[in-house]
């Protein structure tokens, strides 16, 4: 079978690749390797000869019953088409790019791939950080220092003072105001029933009972009892609590909930 072909030295060397088809990264890579065997500048490459080399390789692979990936076969079909177009005189009726355009683009692709290979090799050949040159081995970290400034206005001051001075005017909490109280037992019940539905971290304030937004007294009471309930549940190992920083919202989640 091979005897039918013109056995140039290039073709013979190309045959050697048949054994090691796994070493290629796709048909373009294989074409580039074949092209190199032409031992000419890629710009002057004979795309026709290259197509023949490639088709020969595919034939040989078939003869050896090697299984070729589909993209190798697609390339073979296309090269067979290109070869026939290159051999025939141009058909003025034919639409689309000319055979020469197609051949030129293939040559360009090969040249570009080759150029990128060379560039990659040059890049990797450069001196590298941590191998040839080094950064400071003992960096001295910049420390973040938090400077807290407190702010308060005269109005804050006056309001605070006014509150103190008028405190005596208040009557003690009446029994009928008890409805504004959310007890720890209630908070515990509420949290225990809600926590099962919580998948991830949830802000503690979302556990407050309905209507506590509108009633400041209830809200205050519920905030305290819900917080106490969450502590109690954390103690029992039912929930986990976290707060990213002072004054940030307190978050709660079921113990053993997804841990990311």
């Amino acid at each position, binding site marked *: 079978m091979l005897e039918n072909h013109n056995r140039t030295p290039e073709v013979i060397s190309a045959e050697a690749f048949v054994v090691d088809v796994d070493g290629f990264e796709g048909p373009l890579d294989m074409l580039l390797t074949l092209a190199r065997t032409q031992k000419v500048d890629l710009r002057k490459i004979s795309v026709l000869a290259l197509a023949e080399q490639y088709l020969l390789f595919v034939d040989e692979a078939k003869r050896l019953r090697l299984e070729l990936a589909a993209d190798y076969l697609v390339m073979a079909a296309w090269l067979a088409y290109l070869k026939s177009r290159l051999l025939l005189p141009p058909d003025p009726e034919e639409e689309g790019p000319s055979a020469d355009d197609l051949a030129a683009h293939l040559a360009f692709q090969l040249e570009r791939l080759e150029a990128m290979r060379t560039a990659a090799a040059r890049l990797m050949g450069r001196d590298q950080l941590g191998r040839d040159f080094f950064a400071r081995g003992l960096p*001295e970290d910049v*420390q973040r220092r938090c400077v807290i400034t*407190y*702010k*308060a206005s*005269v109005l804050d*001051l006056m309001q*605070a003072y006014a509150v103190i001075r008028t405190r005596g005017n208040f009557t003690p909490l009446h029994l009928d105001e008890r409805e504004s109280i959310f007890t720890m037992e209630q908070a515990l019940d509420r949290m225990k029933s809600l926590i099962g539905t919580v998948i991830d971290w949830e802000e503690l304030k979302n556990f407050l009972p309905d209507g506590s937004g509108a009633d*400041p007294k209830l809200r205050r009471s519920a905030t305290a009892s819900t*917080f106490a309930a969450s502590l109690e549940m954390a103690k029992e190992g039912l929930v986990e609590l976290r707060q990213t920083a002072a004054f940030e919202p307190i978050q709660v989640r079921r113990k053993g909930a997804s841990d990311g």
Partner: protein
Amino acid sequence: MDETESLFEAPPLAEQERMIEGMLFASSEPLSKRQIEARLPQGCDAAEALSLLSKRYQGRGVELRKVGDGWAFRTAPDLGYLMQTEVKEARKLSRAAIETLAIIAYHQPVSRAEIEEIRGVSVSRGTLDQLLELEWIKLGRRRNTPGRPVTFIVTQTFLDQFGLESSRDLPGIKELRDAGLLDNRPPPGAMPGHEASDENDDQVEMFEEEVDP
């Protein structure tokens, strides 16, 4: 230079200095003279090169320093402040602090016992320390009463901060009432219930954030 046993000549001293400079820079720990010499070409005199290097960095932003029996580069001590970045954070003063401050401003000079009497709750040392640290209050004269308690007064910094010319500029009770600040309904977050000492006020604060819309 000791070249007795080396076949090749040691590199010039300036080059040795350069080598040590690179080594010490890249090393993750101080290197002793022995360690340095083990890595230098034969016949090098680390001591002399180190002394040159040390001189070169004298007065620079980094200095060559002896750490134990090793050598290492370190930031010049006077530049330590450059190794810190300041993160500014403004916080609201806690209610305990603002109330204490208000009492001092209105009643100065005032002793701690008097502040507690007016507030109706005990005043933590931390609250007073915070105000002292802010330089909004300072110690006044001691009282001539048994125990000679210290008193607190507000400072010029306080007056500047609050835009007051003197503490007498603070509005009186009547003006507060006229301004509607002494309504019978207390503002939210100023509910009674301070019976406990304000040692726990920090915790309460957390909730205030949520209560105040």
